[in-house]
């Protein structure tokens, strides 16, 4: 896609989305539990979660394909909870793209404008503009089956944005593409969203996709939004164990919080104790959580304080870092050690000492 100046005809007025206290169950199986979330106008927002977390259900609810048992959905301040899908003006790009095989690319893209009774000449101009926007102007007369996966995806995007929806919904738009296309297309999507100024909601189970292109992310699990924040906030300050574990890798150690006067300490199930920094806020049923790069590995035994002795189980050489799996007492943890050429590596079976950087450690409950 080239950086062309977008004419006003494709630029929509951005609208925010607000979901309030939505509940939805399939039979007796609750899929969304009291979900509330607010998406700012013009924001690129992600629903991120494993399969079965309710993220696609929530997206389809905003599009009007699922009906909430209770709760309200607002788009641009207007209550759309009871509107049918075809009156919502919320554009959706389907995971399967859902291009109609009996129509050409051009007819597919024109469809929504025809439904809106837009004059013929204007339809022609806007379809051409939308196809140029995604770089497929030259394929207007092809059938969807004659296009590659990436091209089909762009047609699906063009078909949706051409009607200037208030919000753009993307349901796992990269899942049917190969790895290389994925990186390219996600950049294009971000680029397009910026140029059109469209409020966009993106559903994905891939944290890397969400981190690289989204302004903010709602992490979902079991029909509940666990946390909302920017990618960095979520990584640095996860609200609970699920978020810490789902975004990046994390070591989680079981134990209990002990209070001795003003000082607090964390005692691992094995008996080892760590002092808890005074500034840290620690819930009573907390576990000790730290990232693999927030620990260091050394051969010297002892040292006390936050040092733990363990045994190297196996190691993976990843280039700039060496990833060690270490057994400490009953638990296995992962430690990433930076690698410089000439460094000696620890062999599996070697006894070592692990030091955890407690300033960057987290005490989280589930």
């Amino acid at each position, binding site marked *: 896609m080239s950086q062309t100046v977008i004419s006003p005809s494709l630029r929509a007025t951005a609208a925010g989305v607000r979901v309030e206290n939505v509940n939805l169950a399939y039979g007796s199986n609750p899929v969304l539990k009291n979900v509330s979330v607010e998406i700012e106008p013009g924001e690129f927002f992600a629903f991120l979660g494993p399969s079965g977390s309710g993220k696609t259900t929530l997206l389809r609810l905003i*599009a*009007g*394909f699922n009906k909430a048992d209770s709760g309200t959905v607002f788009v641009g301040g207007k209550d759309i909870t009871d509107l*049918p*899908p*075809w*009156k*919502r*003006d*919320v*554009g*959706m790009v*389907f*995971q*399967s*793209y*859902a*291009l*109609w*095989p*009996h129509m050409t690319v051009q007819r597919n893209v024109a*469809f*929504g404008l025809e*439904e*809106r009774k837009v004059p013929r000449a204007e339809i022609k101009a806007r379809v051409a503009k939308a196809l140029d926007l995604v770089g497929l102007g030259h394929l207007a007369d092809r*059938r969807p*089956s*004659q296009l590659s996966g990436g091209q089909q995806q762009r047609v699906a995007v063009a*078909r*949706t944005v051409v*009607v200037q929806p208030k919000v753009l919904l993307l349901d796992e738009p990269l899942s*049917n593409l190969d790895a290389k296309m994925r990186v390219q297309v996600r950049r294009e999507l971000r680029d397009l969203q910026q140029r059109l100024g469209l409020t966009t909601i993106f559903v994905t189970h891939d944290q890397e996709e969400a981190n690289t292109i989204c302004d903010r992310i709602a992490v979902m699990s079991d029909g509940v939004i666990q946390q909302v924040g920017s990618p960095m906030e979520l990584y640095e300050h996860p609200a609970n164990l699920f978020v810490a574990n789902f975004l990046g890798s994390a070591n989680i150690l079981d134990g209990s919080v002990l209070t001795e006067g003003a000082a607090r300490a964390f005692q691992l199930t094995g008996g080892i104790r760590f002092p808890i920094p005074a500034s840290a806020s620690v819930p009573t049923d907390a576990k000790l959580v730290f990232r693999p790069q927030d620990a260091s590995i050394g051969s010297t035994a002892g040292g006390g304080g936050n040092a733990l002795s363990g045994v190297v189980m196996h190691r993976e050489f990843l280039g700039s870092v060496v990833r060690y799996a270490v057994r400490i007492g009953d638990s296995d943890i992962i430690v990433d050690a930076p690698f410089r050429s000439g460094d000696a590596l620890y062999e599996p079976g070697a006894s070592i000492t692990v030091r955890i950087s407690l300033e960057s450690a987290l005490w989280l409950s589930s």
Partner: protein
Amino acid sequence: MALAIARPLGRLLASPGQAALAGVIALFLLLFLVVPVTTVIYVAFTEKGTGVFTLINFVDFFRTDLFVNAFWNSIYVSTATVLVASIFALPLAYITTRFSFRGAVLIQTLGFLPLIMPPFAGAVAMQLLFGRNGSVNLLLDDWFGFKIGLMEGLNGVVFVQAVHYFPFILVNLSAALRNIDRSMEEAAQNLGCSGFRLFRRVVFPLALPGYVAGASLVFVKVFDDLATPLLLNVKDMLAPQAYLRVTSIGIADPMGYVIAVVLIVVSVLAMWASTLTLSSKDYATVQRGGGGLAKRTLRPWESAVAYCVVGLILALVLAPHLGLLLLSFATVWSFSPLPDAYTFAHYARVFGDSSVYIKNTLVYASLAALIDVLIGGAIAYLILRTKLIGRQGLDWAASAALAVPGVVLGIGYLRTFYDVPMPDGRPLATFWMMIVLALAIRRLPYALRACHAALEQISVSLEEAAENLGATKMRTVRRVVVPLMTGGILAGFISSFATAAVELSATLMLVQSNSDAPLAYGLYVLMQSPAGRGPGAALGVIAVILVAICTFLSHVVIERSQRAKGALH
């Protein structure tokens, strides 16, 4: 040197055993399909007696008012049947697939019932119900003082054929509607499309291939059908004309052959037109991430209307079954809405002196079905598992039988095998085995499809594993392929059997004596006379039950084999 040649040849031709098998099948198809049909075409284009190429027979055909009339009548009846059948099938298919509708499965099953009755058997029952002096018209005349000419002339044929053949459209259209990915529909709704516009712009175009497939099948079947018009005493249509020409004037008269060629041409054109419509549009609607059309709940008044429509259509299309059943128990049924009294005598008579028909049918249909699955299975194996040169040719030849009307095949057999004497001096064409072979050729395309589908589902690696453990090709086929294909083969056998049991068009030409006649022929003969109607109806009921049991069995077999395969994964 010999080795150097044998190697590449061996790779191309597969094993000698497979090549021999292909040869035998090719010979069979050549003798019993290609030669008879070519003979028909040859006779149509040559001068009687001299064998010189000529178009004079066709000029004669188009100069004879009777034939031109018959041609247009056949076109009219086929087209009108497609229209009327669509009117029956569209609401049923749409309502049962698009809405959560109680009894959808029952409706689909009942909608399939007309197919399991020979159409000409239903014809008599329908005349009693809807004819000029049938039950409906007698009641209408009594109550309102008018009659409806539903069963008059060509329209009677249209009505009977539409009632019989509409399931082809129903089944194909329903399957197509069910295969449409839900996201196709949702994408349209998302862009502002709903209601009837949604149906017109997205749902129906996507289901069109299924509709066209069903409609073209109906067109061809009706165009080639012989027995129904004859039974309704409509003679000025093409297929009946071909039959009458050959049976009354003799097999030397070229006109029968010309009509046969016209029948083939129209069949091929109709099928070609339908494949053309389908292939020009690439409808790969089955995609990832969806699951059939969304089902909508009906509002109470919509539901009431839907049930009325469905009820009316079902009553209409199931009327022949009811009529036939009543007739088989009736003492006298004439000029009255219902029979005068009831009796079991007809069944007694059928099981007495007419039981030879039933016995013949069982023998002919099982032999034909056996030949079909053997040849169909072998062709499927050669196509999918070998690189034999010309294996596609076998597939095409076997499938080409679809385009050959039964009456044409019958004429071809008569002409080709009449001059071949059997050891006892009688012509080969009068041998009952010819009926079996004609039935087998007619049903082969269906059995081939069933076997092809069954074999396609078996992963090649299962066979490679057997070969890897030391089994030869032959033993692999016996120990791995055939057991895994059993479900498909059995289903193919049963459906071939069931349809062969009620087939009449080729049989009508080939049956030479009553003792060789199958059930459908006996039924046809009995139905000609008022006194034979009762026993004829009883025979018809037996045929319906026979086919119904087979259909049910094949359904069970397919279900079970699918479940067994599902358990493996």
